[in-house]
């Protein structure tokens, strides 16, 4: 009678030549889970997202959504099934307005049209604090708004799982704080969140589980403070002691 987890990775591996970005990764994610992912540069964090979103196909292993294999589906189909992602380098539609950027996601990702679509797009812009820039061209936005647009576009697809790839990178402290509140709100309405972030402080505002990756392997998974305190994780982060960054 147990329900299948929202997302499951089963022995997923991906290598480019001799470089291994995912080494037989297995993990399971429940509905409305909030998970942070940390790891040094090149640990395979973004690759993990790409394997989940379909931008990369694994060499081995299986990715399942609701117990159904989605390994062979393309990113568009996975998005329509409820997995939306953001990109570290924003992939905004530069010459389109902020509203239109989100509307594309609402049309295809969420499958809405007409007034319903306009309504959801407006709602998402409101939620992400972009309502005032609705008619602005995406190319004219500053970094903070660009990062928010990336998030807004993912939310426009009405996802059940949203993958955030360094949406807080480069933002000032108050800006990070604003973003954390938005993500916490998204999570509170039942959307599962997986968040890759170097600004660990931001993660602590939202996640209750932390995964640490290094060289394509999972070297820590559990309660955030416990994970950061573990020896394996400390070794990897020698010199950048995340324990100190963690509040409290």
């Amino acid at each position, binding site marked *: 009678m147990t329900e299948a987890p929202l997302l499951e990775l089963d022995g997923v591996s991906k290598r480019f030549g001799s470089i291994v970005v995912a080494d037989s990764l297995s993990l399971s994610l429940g509905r409305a889970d909030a998970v942070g992912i940390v790891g040094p540069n090149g640990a395979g964090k973004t690759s993990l997202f790409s394997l989940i979103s379909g931008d990369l196909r694994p060499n081995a292993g299986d990715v399942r959504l609701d117990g159904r294999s989605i390994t062979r589906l393309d990113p*568009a189909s996975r998005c329509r099934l409820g997995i939306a992602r953001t990109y570290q380098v924003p992939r*905004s539609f*530069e010459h*389109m307005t902020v509203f239109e*950027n989100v509307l594309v996601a609402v049309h295809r*990702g969420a499958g809405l049209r007409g007034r319903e679509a306009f309504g959801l797009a*407006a709602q998402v812009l409101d939620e992400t604090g972009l309502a005032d820039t609705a008619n602005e061209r995406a190319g004219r936005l500053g970094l903070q708004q660009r990062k928010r647009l990336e998030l807004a576009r993912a939310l426009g697809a009405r996802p059940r799982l949203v993958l955030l790839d360094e949406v807080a990178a480069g933002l000032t402290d108050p800006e990070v704080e604003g973003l954390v509140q938005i993500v916490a709100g998204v999570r509170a309405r039942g959307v599962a969140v997986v968040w890759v972030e170097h600004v660990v402080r931001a993660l602590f505002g939202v996640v209750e589980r932390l995964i640490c990756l290094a060289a394509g392997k999972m070297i820590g998974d559990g309660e955030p403070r416990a994970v950061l305190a573990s020896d394996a994780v400390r070794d990897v982060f020698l010199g950048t002691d995340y324990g100190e960054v963690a509040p409290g």
Partner: protein
Amino acid sequence: MSESTAPSVRVSRSRRSSIWMLVAGVVLLAALASLPYVVYANVTDLFVNFFILLTLGVTWNLLAGYAGLVSVGQQAYIGVGAYAVLVLAGDGMSPFLAIPLGALTAAIVSIPVSFIVLHLRGAYFAIATWVVAESFRLAVLRAPSLGGGTGATLYGLAGVDPAVREAFTYWAALAVAAATLIGCYVLLRTRFGLDLTAIRDNEVGARSVGVRIMQAKRIVYVVAAAGAGAAGALLIVSQLNVQAASIFSVQWSAYMIFVALIGGIGTVEGPILGTLAFFLLQQSLAERGAWYLIVVGAVAVLMAMFVPRGLWGLVGDRFRLRLFPTGYWVRPAR
């Protein structure tokens, strides 16, 4: 965020009312349609060429400017359209009625071809489209019933008074160009058009929010083939003959690229301005022989270097002007 505070917005399709544009368009169309009653055939002839180039430019812009498919092989479908009219007229059909069928034939032929070429990217795609066009040319050369290498003459218009024939050719060309332009505009205003605009700006981003890229590209490829087919059909009707070497010439692709690039790629207005610019250049340099091509080439290079967004990029951006508004404009409900 609770449901009660859900924002309500009003969304319109342009910042300003575009009624005056519609009126201007209808007036312009009516004026153009009455042209054969006022001017001589040499003028309408010029317009026929203008409409053919406009049709090619608009469809190539859809391909390259929106779907990111830089084809240098649209002449494949120009040829298919022309030869389809030749064959249908040979069977006794009126060449004018065969024009839409020429477009349809090109569209049908392009479907299986799309499954081969669309799997290639960038330069590989470009070269593949050219190879397809060359293959079509070679196939025609080996088909004596199509005139082979010596070309073929279009029959079926022999008994028609030249003045009437030329007027009808003009109207057919006007109809094709208007249908292409309006069709393109309407397409770009749909949800599918918004997808295409998103693909234009960022393909990976579009894919990630659920846009089916391959399907969108295939549709555009087929639509562009239909446009090229219609242009080819018009060419044979206006010239009354067809030659494989010239109808399948890569020169057509050069013209299309020039028109879209000069005018402003990825905009509806661009190819119109580009076609106008091309004709002005052509007319003013007509007596200077080879200089004409040199100047056209130099203009294209300079524009690509210094005005990458084309003439319409200069005008439209400065005045926030859209002759063909395809976007969405949001206002708070109250």
